[in-house]
């Protein structure tokens, strides 16, 4: 999508259609089906002869709108029928029906604008002879015809939702937070496990020792980290480091004892 512009004179042809994907690139067929005419042929006719065309080429769009369970007196006064924006305007009668007058032939999107209720827009095609057809609005596949009944039957599809919910704070949100779960669960395990497992029971102790030994299959094998420290430790502090190292090197078997020694000393 980068158009390098050599000088100022390059004419840029819009790449819009190609971007819209295969549906449009293939869709070079006429937008309306053959029975529908070209819309009014532009300037000379549209502007010059407008007064003369007034009766001959102007049609009515008729329809009925309904909101389920609400009487039209309540919603109709605040709603308005808009055809292609504010180009043509119609009002809704007290029985829910509406008429938009003086619409020239062409293709239009009819929309009911209400500040409360939501209505689906409908595309209405009018031939030059005044034949009408209603279909679903599809801005991407503009030639697709999903026919709808005419006179229009527009039903409310719900209320407009203008507001978003505030994020409220609750204990469940707090507790279900993954960070909290990560913190709280180990804490619970640390606190509760010693209570559950009786460490003073010798049978249990033996069992644990065995399981620990299972984890450390060969206590005689020197630890890799230890080897490293031995290698890279400065020779001057060799004695101290080796002593501490040897202390830890024994840990293979002895640390377990040492650890368990703690509570016993108490």
């Amino acid at each position: 999508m980068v158009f390098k512009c050599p000088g100022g004179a390059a004419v840029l042809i819009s790449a819009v259609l190609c971007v819209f994907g295969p549906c449009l690139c293939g869709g070079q067929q006429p937008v309306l089906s053959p029975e529908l005419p070209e819309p009014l042929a532009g300037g000379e006719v549209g502007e010059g002869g407008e007064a003369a065309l007034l009766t001959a080429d102007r049609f009515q769009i008729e329809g009925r709108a309904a909101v389920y369970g609400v009487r039209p007196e309540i919603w109709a006064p605040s709603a308005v029928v808009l055809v292609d924006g504010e180009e043509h305007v119609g009002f809704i009668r007290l029985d829910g029906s509406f008429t938009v007058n003086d619409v020239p032939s062409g293709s239009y999107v009819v929309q009911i604008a209400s500040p409360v209720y939501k209505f689906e827009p409908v595309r209405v095609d009018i031939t030059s002879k005044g034949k009408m057809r209603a279909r679903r609005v599809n801005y991407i596949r503009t030639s697709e015809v999903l026919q709808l009944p005419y006179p229009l039957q527009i039903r409310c599809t719900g209320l407009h939702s203008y507001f978003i919910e505030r994020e409220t704070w609750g204990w469940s949100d707090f507790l279900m937070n993954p960070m909290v779960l990560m913190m709280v669960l180990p804490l619970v395990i640390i606190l509760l496990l010693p209570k559950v497992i009786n460490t003073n029971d010798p049978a249990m102790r033996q069992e644990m020792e065995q399981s620990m030994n299972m984890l450390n299959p060969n206590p005689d094998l020197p630890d890799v980290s230890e080897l490293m420290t031995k290698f890279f430790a400065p020779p001057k502090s060799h004695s101290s480091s080796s002593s501490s190292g040897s202390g830890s090197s024994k840990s293979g078997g002895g640390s377990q004892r040492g650890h368990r020694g703690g509570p016993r000393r108490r």
Partner: protein
Amino acid sequence: MAGLCSVFSVCLCLLGFSAAVFEDQVGKFDWRQQFVGKVQFALFDTHSQASKKLLVATEKNIFASLNSRTGDLFWRHVDKTGPDGHIDTFMMHGQDAVVVVGNGRLLRSWETTVGGLNWETVLDTGSFQSAAYIGVQDVVRYVAVLKKSAISLHYLSNGHQKWVENLPESDTVQYQTVYSGGNGQVFVLGVVPNSHIVIVEYNIEDGEIMKQKSVAAPWLSSLQSSCVMVGSGVLLCADPTTKSLYTFPLQSADQTTMTPILLESLGVEVAAGFQPVLISTQPHPARPPLSEFFLQLGPDYHILLQLKDGLVSTLRDFNPSYLVAFATTGEKTVAAVMSPKNETASVINLYSADTGRRLLDTTIIYSMDPNGGKPAKLYIHAFLKKDDSVGYRVLVQTEDLVLTFLQQPGRVVWSREEALADVVTMEMVDLPLTGTQAELEGEFGKKADGLLPMVLKRLSSQFILLQAWMSHLWKLFYDARKPRSHVKNEVTFETLSRDEFNLQKMMVMVTASGKLFGIDSKSGTVLWKQYLENIQPNSVFKLMVQRTTAHFPHPPQCTLLVKDKDTGLGSLYVFNPIFGKKSHISVPALPRPILQSLLLPLMDQDYSKVLLLIDDQYKVTAFPSTKNVLQQLQEMASSIFFYLVDSSQGRLSGFRLRKDLSTELIWEVVIPTEVQKIVGVKGKRANEHVHSQGRVMGDRSVLYKYLNPNLLAVVTESTDSHQERSFVGIFLIDGVTGRIVHEAVQRKARGPVHFVHSENWVVYVYWNTKSRRNEFSVLELFEGMELYNSTVFSSLDRPRPPQVLQQSYIFPSPISTLEATLTEKGITSRHLLVGLPSGAIMSLPKMFLDPRRPEVASDQSREENLIPYSPEMPIRTEWFINYNQTVSRVRGIYTAPSGLESTCLVVAYGLDIYQTRVYPSKQFDVLKDDYDYVLISSVLLGLFFATMISKRLAEVKLLNRAWR
């Protein structure tokens, strides 16, 4: 694929950004005011005594009902603009109102309590002349509509046509009036100018012509302007040349000439050159009009006359009197007359219509606004009091479109500023500092003082601040005790001061009628208004803030350039935007048409920015033009450039200022007018800041923006409007050098084009004629991976053209207007504010209009937070910043930065005015209003106590261990 993409993007927008409103924020910082425009017809619902309905039909093609107790709207129906929606006439009977719309094209009946449409009938073509209710035996059954060549009768109950008849000899006779006295006849009156009157009587049942006769009236040119029906079927006409009245009874069988009555015989004189105006009244449509009528003999002179047995007698002479009106309640008809009292007030009195006697205790004093216009129309709401005497309220419309509703003895019940229905341009001006704040500011300005006085001053100002804070706290405490409804934040000039975050500003609005308003942006209260008289109706206005409130001893200053569209002659009006007072600064005379005006960042000694006005001989006038300014201009002249647009010749030209304030042409771009015409030229806003010079890409390199402050976006439309050949062109032109930086053509497209030009991008909307939909297109300009000259931008030294990226999107709705948000420093992300025809204002994140949106999401694009491309732009009602407060016919959106970086002030104007704030990147710099103080303080307290307790426990434990 597209579906997947859209689902993904929807997810993204749910996560990422929201411009939505929370339900509890409704009305907290936003307000809407609804208007109807200049009233053409106004009727009070007299159906029942308790009714408070006032029905109005206005020049803005609006039919509405107002609450006559409060002035609020009950309901309002906005028809389409232009002559097709024009309301020709409006009549009311009982609960229903009948309206003729669009030069007699439609006949509508409205139910007035809820505002619903009863029925609607399309009438035959033909220019509308008049309409009347037709009553039979005291009951109104039909409505008759008279067109140029036909008359039709419709049932009042369902609008069905009873009959339609062509009028005889309609090519020579101008039929203008239809009349029915309520006895089953329909009279149609026509005139052949300066020859004779034609009277045709129709049968009400089948439309058959019963009688047809003509009466010689060689002095008469129009029935509508000089004739009325009076009494039981008497045609009364006024002739200014012979200074006489003519009467003719319609039902008379043998009379063939009109009976003249000389005005001199009544003892009255017509003002020289004045066309006398007759005013009569028909209280009930099924009964004949009253035999009393007003005759206006001069601009301020009316008399009340009575026609009895073919003789006219004077009931009362009102000299001087501005306005008169009839009103009926029950069986009584009264006449209200407004006459001058003194220079600032008028007095309205009621007179009995049948005798001309003044009714006691019926005086209303109407005091005129010295900054407003004269009263123009009078509407009376009469009612019967308990003692059967007539009481009344009066609605006055003035020339500056103020509707005032008054009751005895002159109390204003409500008033509406209908001029605000047509706002042309506006500015937001910072409010001045309070006295204490100004004191503090002043402290830093002076330098001469020694150390000790400085310390003392510091202390004293701190004390003042403390005092102010204490009084503020006291007020808060005091208000908190009162019930909520009693606390009123009345905004007056005394309380008007800048708030902490500069969120409250003064909105200066210019209306098409030439009335200026100063409105407080927080509450919407009109603080000042000024009516500029002698403004031509087709003037164009340009409002400029020459001096802001930042230069304390000097008052802020706004300048309004009023330009007549036809002659191009301009005039300047200089005023203080806070108080609305006209400034006494002498304004340069502008004898020649003005082509262009520009506000320079140069300042005079008194801190007012220099305004340059270029006339049609390319001579420059500076305002203010003091010596200092002229000297600065001479120094700076070589770097002051400006451009002119001549759309009729398709020419854009750039000029440079010379030292002697003449100009030289530097460049010229001609866009051939045979092919395309210029529809819009936009530069960037002067107060716009761009925070970041570039965009960080996914691979951590920087793509630098092309930030040319002199860039102009020029939009053209093809003259050929055929759907296959029409196109929309956009040119980006450097305003200094005239170089065309970029040029793009959108084929098979037409206007109306709305576009926004800001930072390094241009967004424009056009109509795709092939696919019949609106499309957004965005152009973004980048310098590339390195910046050419990072310290300063010069249009003259830019060897490389910018890289241009473009992308287009479908927008599933038409568009009324387009604007971009603006913040103080430009750090906050931008949103586009889109005004939709349904009245909603949508805040669309600029993120959706990014030409770098990839077709397929990659890791790098995800790193950059780019949304994958989807052709259709979503419209989500959560993005509607005005929720259900729709703004009808939105014409413009004004955005202004506030003191908070996150907040942008928005005013949408059209028929209504809506003011709100938007937070494009949410409120990142202040605590949100839903900030949970309770939670945070409880957590803090909890932690505090926990540490205390655990400390204590640890101490105990240590002690125990030591003892062991």
